């Protein structure tokens, strides 16, 4: 990607990302997926799906909210309809005619959906999520419709990324890296884990982005070597080993990466490492320099093997085999998951999760690995990766950030 393409401000002579082309491409892919699945109508409640199909800019909220019909796609007319009271953030291709309003009355909402041309007569309606109430209301207002799975067709449509989507993902990665740099710089004794979340949010906001993909894992590794994921009130101490794994959304696309760092006396971890904190020092899982650098070397071997297996036609079972072939046990967190407008299938990990998934060129994955030993510590790392990004076969790592104290001694 050309250097000037990696930013958020507008350029005069060309868009960094051609959003009109991106929206048009996604619209076509959605209709093709509906045709493939035999769907007459799609009713979408998941914000990721609503955004992917419409390109509308909507208010970010944390977590999953109760189901509501955010968007409707009708195959016969090709039209996209959106739940929105105003046209701010709505692409011109949808326009005012494509909007239906917010209502607190579920029957009113169901009726609005049924009034969209093509819905009341639809034979097969796909929903990406549902509530018992809405399912029954829909049956009442569109009695001919058979309600089927719409999530699968949407995942299929979103699976491989266009060049414009990869451009958005690269920008999201660069923004996330900026936020990670701020977190690393903020590491010092006395800081609470959750304050690092605020540091991340502030830095990405300075780049004009306030939508996190996740507020970030910023958790000290305990003496038991366990990796926690939910940041809390724990106060950082010098020598603490800490996992940092944030993510930001750019135009809805998720960038993410993870690193394991050491809290130094004055930030950056460098001093804490080179001063040689001694075995068991620092009050956390750092069983001395040697222990942690061993874990990092092991992590690097296993991760590189895993990364080398992120190729078209490899299966989830092969990915698990690649990791465990190095002698490392499978961690409790997934080895890979898809990313696009947020987290997507496949998810591959413990208990044969995703073993039958098959990778394809153009998929983008979050690849993560964890090596831990009780009493010694843990090393976690994550990268965002484009399958087939190099020569159509090898994976291209989209994220870029050093390993600081762990790499300097390895």
């Amino acid at each position, binding site marked *: 990607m050309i250097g000037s393409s990696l930013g958020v401000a507008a350029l005069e002579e060309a868009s960094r990302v051609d959003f009109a082309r991106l929206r048009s491409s996604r619209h076509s892919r959605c209709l093709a997926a509906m045709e493939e699945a035999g769907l007459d109508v799609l009713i979408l409640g998941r914000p990721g799906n609503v955004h992917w199909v419409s390109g509308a800019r909507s*208010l970010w909220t944390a977590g*999953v909210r109760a189901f509501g019909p955010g968007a409707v796609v009708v195959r016969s007319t090709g039209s996209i309809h959106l739940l929105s009271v105003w046209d*701010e953030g709505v692409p011109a291709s949808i326009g005012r005619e494509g909007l239906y309003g917010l209502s607190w009355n579920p029957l009113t909402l169901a009726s609005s959906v049924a009034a969209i041309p093509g819905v009341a007569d639809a034979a097969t309606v796909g929903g990406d999520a549902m509530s018992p109430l809405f399912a029954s209301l829909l049956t009442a207002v569109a009695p001919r419709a058979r309600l089927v799975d719409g999530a699968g067709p949407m995942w299929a449509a979103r699976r491989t990324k266009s060049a414009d989507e990869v451009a958005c993902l690269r920008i999201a990665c660069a923004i996330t890296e900026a936020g990670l740099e701020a977190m690393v710089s903020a590491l010092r004794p006395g800081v609470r884990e959750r304050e690092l979340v605020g540091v991340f949010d502030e830095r990405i906001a300075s780049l004009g982005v*306030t939508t996190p993909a996740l507020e970030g894992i910023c958790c000290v590794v305990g003496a038991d070597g366990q990796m926690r994921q939910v940041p809390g009130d724990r106060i950082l101490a010098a020598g603490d080993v800490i996992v940092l794994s944030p993510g930001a959304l750019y135009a809805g696309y998720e960038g993410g990466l993870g690193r394991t760092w050491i809290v130094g006396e004055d930030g950056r971890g460098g001093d804490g490492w080179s001063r040689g904190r001694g075995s068991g020092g620092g009050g956390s899982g750092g069983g001395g320099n040697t222990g942690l650098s061993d874990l990092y070397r092991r992590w690097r071997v296993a991760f590189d093997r895993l990364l080398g297996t992120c190729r078209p036609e490899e299966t989830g079972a092969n990915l698990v085999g690649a990791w465990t072939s190095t002698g490392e046990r499978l961690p409790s967190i997934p080895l890979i998951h898809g990313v696009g407008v947020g987290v997507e299938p496949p998810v591959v990990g413990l208990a044969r999760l995703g073993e039958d998934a098959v990778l394809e060129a153009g998929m983008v994955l979050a690849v993560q690995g964890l090596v831990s030993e009780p009493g010694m510590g843990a090393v976690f790392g994550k990268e965002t990766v484009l399958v087939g990004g190099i020569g159509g076969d090898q994976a291209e790592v989209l994220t870029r950030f050093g390993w600081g104290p762990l790499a300097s001694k390895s």
Partner: protein
Amino acid sequence: MLAPADIQDSPDLARMRRDRYARAQAQLAAHDLDGLLLVGESNVEYVTGARVLTADAGRAAMFRTVAYVARDDPFPHVFAAYPDGLPPELPADHIHPAVYPEFGARPVAEIIRGERAIGLDEYTAAMRRELHGSGLVDFVDATPIMVAARICKTVDELRCIRMAQHINEQAMLDVQAALRPGVRQTDLSGLFLRRIFELGATGNAVDPIWQVMPARMADGPWTIHGDVAFPTATTDAILRDGDVVWVDTGITFNGYASDFGRTWLVSAPPGPPRPTGVQRDQFARWRAVVEAVLDRVKPGSTGGDLTRAARSVLPADARTPWLGHFYLVHGVGADSAEMPLVGTDLGPAFDESIVLAPGMVLVLEPVIWDDGASGYRSEEIVAVTEGGWVPLSDHPYWPFGS
């Protein structure tokens, strides 16, 4: 009788979890159900107290924590996406590996096998396929059951809401001090988000709103209903001298939401911003509406009493003093907007059916709008008590009157 001082104390989180779980069990008994299968994020948080990573909707839907509450079981079963977020009292035999509702829920189906009637709040297609195989064909909608459990808050829940609101308010003191021409909406967000975590927030709940309100609706976004467009998503838009900014934010503290709303004015140095006569009058009308509504807040009052009170202090032909696509009053708890909802398009009969009871938490958000001269909007939160109400919000209206 609940006094303001009772709410200032720190919540007893363990007691809160026990009390909430007891309410869920009481609902199970009242509806004669064998269990509740909960996938909805705030419902799961309510019955388990399990903490999760704050994330966007895509991640949150994939890596979900699922709960199953069996009748008379002293603890919930939790399929935990984040094992380190589980409360310490959960016994090991009630903690299960994560399930992925996007792909199915077979481990859950195993646990509910043989049960007769279960409440369910939402489902995926994959879940439906597998749960169907468990022998259960239909589920009772758990949503009204959970609303009934959640609508009246215990004192610990009120303390959590008060703490969330306090953190939100304290952060806003720093943000408003930074408000000046040239600052971007995203700059305000960055400052706000940094401060809430320093002050003890668990997470952020909604992208902060700092919307510049036009003088005329015609100068703002087109709307379906012809009423004011609010809230629109934040961008890197640059704020300017004289801008009227409607602020709306929400954070979470131990699973409970805040809801902050104020109207600010941007002014160039040396400031301070000076509201015009019209703006001061808008604020005065807003205050009059709030006071009239609060006068009716007590157990036994209906939602209809509140909407009538709001209209009573304005001329008969005045614009409805709240947003057409929203409400005059909404509840807040584990969700930033929940029952009771008063003044929505559910209509006057629905408003009449809402009867206030002690423990309900009400967010009042009237809006005064004079097309051609913008408007005033702020929010206040109160908890209904035996005798009336206590405030949960406490923040200056500056630069408007006290």
